[in-house]
């Protein structure tokens, strides 16, 4: 931590107030359009699979493809330069500019050139560098950095751009509307492009077999930059190489849809430079275009800058499959509220930004913003190349934890934190990562533990030492756990149709015991024999703190505790969606494939299981029916990623409840995130979106139900009326 927690909280507060509103409106708009666009695309999953395969193959064969590309580019009459790092690339580009006696370089949008800081390098040589993408130009004029991978000025409103132009240019008739601002920019930039000596572009994809690059744009400035000056320098990362032009179509069909929800952008330049187009001198009114020469120079500058090392890194390698669409930013609740100036590093932002910054700049840079990824997984299903973005964030967090020197007062909690982590781990992460141990102690000593924890001195100490925000209510531990309660009762089922193990997750077992009891009553009412054995916690808590080794230990223990039940033909029913998501997604990384698959196949979310029982003919009569009872339901983020929201809605509707659902990506609590004093205000700001949806005239009188522990805690903090798990609605008394 280079900044104190208080400084960081203040910076987040400032960005939420200044840049938050524009970012929220724009990212949510992109996100909605993306959802609609991919829903219309019938071969969407096929395209994602194909895109993934192409990237896996290309990165695997990268050294060979670089050589093939070099041959193609040279055969076409261009030059390929492979730059080891930013300094190397900048040196080469400066030499090209110098050879051309360039006074001005015009650029189209390229995040890779942002990574290099090539503008500064050229400006040091006295070259005028002009960004011609309108958003990028705004950022250049304002001396800011891009706040989003594809929409660099997404943090600025129309008014703030108008103010900026007025301040800088002091025009007689200041432009105000979007039309006027665009014309104003086009005119000024048109003049700059007309007289430029070198045009610099990025490239979204480069085909090794022909040397063709695809540049995906909407404005037309990349086209102008590439063909108006006689010299074209294209700068791109080595990972952009694909084997063939035949491989381009899945990416082109996915890129715009994933980013902004357009089917295709206005222009995809498929350039195989140097191009045949005649050189342009707009003062020439004598020579027809067909008689002008097409004497052009072309330089493809391929950037390594850490990428070849990422390729060798089993965990970071996947980052290289990223096609920079920005989907993981747009679908991220935290990003929607703070943008890339908080949730971003030197160049790259959003969830995948962690992978890029860790690989290119190093862990220190990634550590500055990695905590904004809460692992909610809402970006996972929309990633066009199926990158497990939350996992990359977890891996980087784990490395940050291990790489840093210990700080704080570890001895205070050493006994409470029996984890497998190194001593460098931050105290707050260690505390939240070992929540199971705390919960056991909390229940054993309840209600005294609750009284003590809630006293002012205790809250003060928790905030000072472990960063637990004093404005949050702490979980109230129950003296009698679900497992204890269950042991003391007799089953009500005599002739069971099925047998299940109800997984006693830490929260259900120690805090929200009532939802556990409701689940038992519901399942038994449907003729199922239920067992509630003592099973270790899933590892979700340590995983979310980046404590991978500890999470893996949990995975082995949980599997050990459940395997015999699974072998005995029992299904595993899980109440807490984040724990089911562990079984379903992360255990693949910790357990032998066959074990992970076996557990995965037999595990169900509780309402999903009820849905299955009812579909298979179970009698719903014993359940509490809705009688048109109005309900407002918020599904858990990870539950929605697993495609399990609809089951709860269907069960409730079939039982006669009238259900309105939220459509926010996440409640903002995200496990421990909302407890941390650095992030408390952001968490509440994100939560406000959900609170608003449940406070409209249509929803404000509805009974609130939510599936996740975090969501329930957050809703309790946000709304005056109580909330509960849907199984508590339908459970018989």
């Amino acid at each position, binding site marked *: 931590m280079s900044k104190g927690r208080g400084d960081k909280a203040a910076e987040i507060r400032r960005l939420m107030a200044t840049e938050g509103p524009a970012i929220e409106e724009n990212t949510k708009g992109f996100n909605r359009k993306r959802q609609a666009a991919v829903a219309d*695309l*019938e*071969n*969407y999953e096929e395209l994602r699979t194909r895109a993934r395969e192409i990237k896996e193959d290309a990165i695997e064969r990268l050294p060979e493809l670089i050589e093939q590309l070099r041959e193609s580019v040279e*055969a076409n*009459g261009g030059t390929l330069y492979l730059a080891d790092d930013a300094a190397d690339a900048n040196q080469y580009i400066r030499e090209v500019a110098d050879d051309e006696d360039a006074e001005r370089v015009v650029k189209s949008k390229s995040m890779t050139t942002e990574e290099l800081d090539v503008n500064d390098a050229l400006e040091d040589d006295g070259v005028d560098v002009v960004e*011609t*993408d*309108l958003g990028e130009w705004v950022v250049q004029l304002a001396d800011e950095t891009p706040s989003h991978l594809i929409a660099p000025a997404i943090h600025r409103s*129309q008014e703030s*751009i108008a103010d900026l132009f007025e301040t800088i240019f002091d025009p007689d008739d200041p432009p105000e509307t*979007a*039309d006027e*601002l*665009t014309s104003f*920019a*086009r005119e000024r*930039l*048109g003049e700059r492009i007309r007289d430029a000596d070198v045009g610099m572009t990025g490239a979204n994809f480069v*085909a090794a*077999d*022909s*040397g*063709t690059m695809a540049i995906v744009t909407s*404005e*037309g*400035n990349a*086209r*102008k930059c590439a063909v108006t000056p006689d010299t074209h320098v294209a700068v791109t990362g080595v990972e952009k190489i694909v084997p063939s*032009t*035949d491989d*381009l*179509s899945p990416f082109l*069909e996915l890129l715009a849809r994933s980013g*902004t929800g357009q089917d*295709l952008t*206005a*222009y*995809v*330049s*498929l*350039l*195989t*430079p140097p*191009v*045949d*187009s*005649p050189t*342009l*001198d*707009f*003062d*020439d*009114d*004598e*020579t*027809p*275009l*067909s008689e*002008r020469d097409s004497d052009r120079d072309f330089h493809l500058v391929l950037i390594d800058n850490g990428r070849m090392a990422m390729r060798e890194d089993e965990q970071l390698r996947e980052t290289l499959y990223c096609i920079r669409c920005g989907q993981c930013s747009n679908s991220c609740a935290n990003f929607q509220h703070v943008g890339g100036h908080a949730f971003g590093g030197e160049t790259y932002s959003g969830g995948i930004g962690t992978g890029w910054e860790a690989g290119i700049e190093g862990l220190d840079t990634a550590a500055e913003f990695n905590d904004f990824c809460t692992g909610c997984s809402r970006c996972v299903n929309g990633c066009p190349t199926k990158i497990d973005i939350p996992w990359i964030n977890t891996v980087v967090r784990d490395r940050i934890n291990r790489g840093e020197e210990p700080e704080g007062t570890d001895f205070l909690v050493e006994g409470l934190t029996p984890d497998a982590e190194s001593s460098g781990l931050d105290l707050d992460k260690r505390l939240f990562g070992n929540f199971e141990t705390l919960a056991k102690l909390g229940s054993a000593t309840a209600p005294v533990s609750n009284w003590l924890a809630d006293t002012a001195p205790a809250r003060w100490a928790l905030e000072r030492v472990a960063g637990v925000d004093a404005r949050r209510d702490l979980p109230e531990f129950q003296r009698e756990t679900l497992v204890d309660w269950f042991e003391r009762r007799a089953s009500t089922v005599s002739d069971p149709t099925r047998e299940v193990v109800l997984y006693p997750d830490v929260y259900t077992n120690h805090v929200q015991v009532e939802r556990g009891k409701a689940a038992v009553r519901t399942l038994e009412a449907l003729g199922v024999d239920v067992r509630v054995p003592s099973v270790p916690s899933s590892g979700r808590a340590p995983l979310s703190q980046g404590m991978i080794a500890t999470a893996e230990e949990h995975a082995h223990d949980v599997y050990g505790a459940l395997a015999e039940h699974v072998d005995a033909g029992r299904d595993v029913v899980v109440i807490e969606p984040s724990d089911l998501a562990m079984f379903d997604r992360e255990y693949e990384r910790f357990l032998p494939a066959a074990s992970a698959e076996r557990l995965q196949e037999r595990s169900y979310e509780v309402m999903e299981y009820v849905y299955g029982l009812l579909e298979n003919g179970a009698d719903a009569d014993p359940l509490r029916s809705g009688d048109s009872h109005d309900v407002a339901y918020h599904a858990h983020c990870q539950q929605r990623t697993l495609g399990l929201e609809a089951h709860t809605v269907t069960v409730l509707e079939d039982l006669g409840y009238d259900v309105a659902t939220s459509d926010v990506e996440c409640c903002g609590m995200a496990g421990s995130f909302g407890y941390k004093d650095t992030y408390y205000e952001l968490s509440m700001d994100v939560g406000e979106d959900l609170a608003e949806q449940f406070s409209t005239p249509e929803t404000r009188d509805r009974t609130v139900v939510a599936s996740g522990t975090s969501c329930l805690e957050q809703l309790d903090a946000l709304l005056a009326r109580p909330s509960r798990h849907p199984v508590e609605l339908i459970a018989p008394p």
Partner: protein
Amino acid sequence: MATTTTNPLSTFEDALDELGVALTRTTTDEFAATLDGVVRAPAVGTPLPFDVAYPDSVAVDPTPAALERAATGVTPASFGVANYGSVFLPSTADGAEPVSLYPELHVPVIRAGDVLPDLPEALDRFGETARADAASAIVGTGPSATADMGELVLGAHGPEAVHVVMLDE
């Protein structure tokens, strides 16, 4: 959207309509008269590889200065992509790329028989020419656009309007 089971031409028409791109269908004989009614003066064009004549209102093979003054640029499209309403605009030595880019109205001319059902097929054909002849092309889908100034504006750096003229044979 993804696959075209119906006639590619009607799919192409629908897609252009959705993009706000005008479409005028004509024959080789009627081409000059049709184009004359479509262009905004002053208009320039590059030679067309089809058996058609340009109207007098279009200056063929302009100088760079004439291109800069032009309000319309007419260029050939080598093929269309039905489901996206896209046109493949080849970059040629007679300047099809700048002529399709600089004027405020772009008029791509395409033969009806060159409208292909989908992007993979169009890229297959393009790929052959890229590998064999180092060909370049622009896949153009609607007019130039930006949302960087707060809302969607057409005509950012490129043409604000596109009007496709299709030759029925």
